[in-house]
């Protein structure tokens, strides 16, 4: 029951966030100088042409009317039509989303698979070889830009030794290298966090109790301490997933993946209002959703916060 009220409250917050963001993006775009009608019409256009385009776009109506119309569209998941490609924005997003989603999920999984075991090992065997390896890895991982890593991986594993395809998006194989570049970079941060968190938990008093009960070291570390140590790691991993879903733009560029990142990038270049708006709201929704899920997951692991 507690969990349910907690879930409802968090969900309410989610809705509020999305509403706020939609409102902000709506007004921000219209405040930026530059009339899209002019852009579309071109330099030689006449006033009538421009007016016509405005009427078509709906930008000649009063702001409030535009806003309300925008809101009612959003609720129906109608983000309008892309000005450049004349396709419904919603459709464009949904076409590209699966690729970005797969990339992000694979990325975060790789991240966790690298970071958590190494981080825990680092913490448990402090100052040993494993610990140094872990710290070195994390330092390098944080210093290397992920796109450079991507290019290197492409060079080595797709050009020199032709294990992976160079570009394209047909299968999982196409996603492995990009996911690796994304995942390794994030793993570096997660590893440090895991290590620090685990070290902190191991120095807490309940660990002394656990030892005094005659539990094996394994139980003490992995049953008692780890559970508490993972809490902050999960939160951060969840947030990173959110970012990745926004479209790991650069990685998509490097690997020529037709994902959301590229879509939005071009949208911004071309001042494609509906696309940009739709994109931002979409990312906001996804990010909030991820946070919500992370919160719920967190509350399962950490019983203390269910109360509020």
């Amino acid at each position: 029951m507690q969990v349910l009220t907690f879930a409802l409250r968090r969900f309410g917050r989610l809705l509020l966030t999305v509403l706020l963001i939609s409102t902000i993006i709506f007004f921000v775009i219209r405040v930026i100088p530059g009339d899209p009608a002019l852009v579309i019409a071109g330099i030689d256009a006449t006033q009538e042409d421009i007016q016509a385009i405005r009427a078509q776009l709906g930008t000649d109506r009063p702001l409030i009317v535009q806003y309300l119309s925008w809101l009612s569209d959003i609720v129906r998941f109608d983000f309008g039509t892309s000005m450049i490609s004349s396709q419904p924005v919603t459709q464009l997003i949904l076409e590209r989303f699966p690729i970005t989603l797969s990339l992000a999920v694979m990325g975060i999984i790789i991240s966790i698979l690298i970071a958590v075991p190494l981080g825990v090992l680092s913490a448990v065997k402090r100052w040993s070889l494993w610990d140094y390896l872990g710290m070195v890895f994390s330092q390098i991982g944080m210093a290397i830009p992920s796109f450079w890593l991507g290019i290197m991986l492409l060079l080595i594993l797709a050009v020199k030794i032709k294990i992976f395809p160079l570009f394209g998006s047909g299968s999982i194989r196409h996603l492995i290298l990009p996911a690796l570049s994304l995942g390794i970079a994030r793993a570096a941060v997660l590893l440090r966090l895991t290590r620090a968190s685990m070290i902190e938990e191991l120095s807490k008093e309940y660990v002394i109790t656990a030892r005094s009960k005659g539990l094996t070291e394994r139980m003490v570390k992995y049953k008692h301490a780890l559970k508490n140590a993972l809490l902050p790691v999960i939160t951060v991993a969840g947030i990173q997933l959110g970012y990745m879903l926004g479209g790991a733009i650069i990685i998509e560029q490097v690997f020529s993946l037709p994902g959301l990142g590229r879509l939005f990038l071009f949208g911004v270049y071309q001042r494609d209002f509906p696309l940009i708006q739709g994109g931002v709201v979409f990312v906001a929704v996804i990010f909030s959703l991820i946070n919500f899920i992370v919160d719920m997951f967190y509350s399962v692991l950490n019983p203390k916060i269910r109360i509020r």
Partner: protein
Amino acid sequence: MEHLLKIEGLDVSFNEQARALRGIDLIMDTGQIHGLVGESGSGKTVTSTCIIGLLPVPPGRINGGSMIFKGRELLNLSEAQRRSLRGREIAMVFQEPARYLNPALRVGEQITEMLILHQDLEKQQAIAKALEIIDLVGLKGGTKTLRRYPHELSGGMKQRAMIAMAISCNPSLLIADEPTTALDVTLQQQILKLIQDLKQRFDMGILFISHDLAVVHEIADRISVIYAGRIVESTTKKRLFEEPLHPYTRLLLLSIPDAGKRGTRLKAIPGTVPDAEHIPSGCAFHPRCPLAEEICRHQDPETADYGSNGEGHTAACHMIGKKWIDL
């Protein structure tokens, strides 16, 4: 007759310079509550840590002495052997239950894991046993309570939960390290009563560590006073409070305020407790002792028995029997 626990000359230091224990002697028997009284920095926690075998060996170091538990020399044991004693034969209850209980595991889990590990029970059997135990320690609520997390319990209940965990496998020796210090007076009384009940019921020996002489007076059968890493006096409760021998004990008793002393000035002990790195030469108490003489500055007193009628009364002081002026 074999004692439950016999510690002789235990000497422990940290990082070479800090001398935490300088020759501890302690004897405990089953069915007895032995109070270990000392202030912070006196070495009482280090003693308990050694008994349960959790002394971190760097930076700590055992320089000498012996600890014989039910006939076995604890200092010769391997870590695996020590671990098999922990929880099963020697158990510990700590001071602040909020910190010493795992916040992410249910209370029941923290009890049953011991039963499953040490007594080889199946999960269902362990749960049944756990229910019995929490009832024994006065934790109401049965299965509901087992399913709770520590933060859902009140302070007193948390402490009972810790006690439940400790006695779950029927240990022969229970070490209680300041178990009531963080509790309110009325709760403290309840926990002390509980501990006494458990002593009767379980045929255990209990080492009760505290800085509070009044609490120790309430509960202990025998009392040892520890100062700067040595036991300065050890005897029955009655003798300690009625005929204290060591100046530290006597001054401590005089310095404690109580209603009966209203209107009189408390006899405060001057100076401070020495820390383990700067232990005075000779008798560690000499800088603060009103009876100190030349020999006290140079020679650490031996422990001698001044008891009679078979009741041991040991004390480590050169000046036993010297007359006190202006007290």
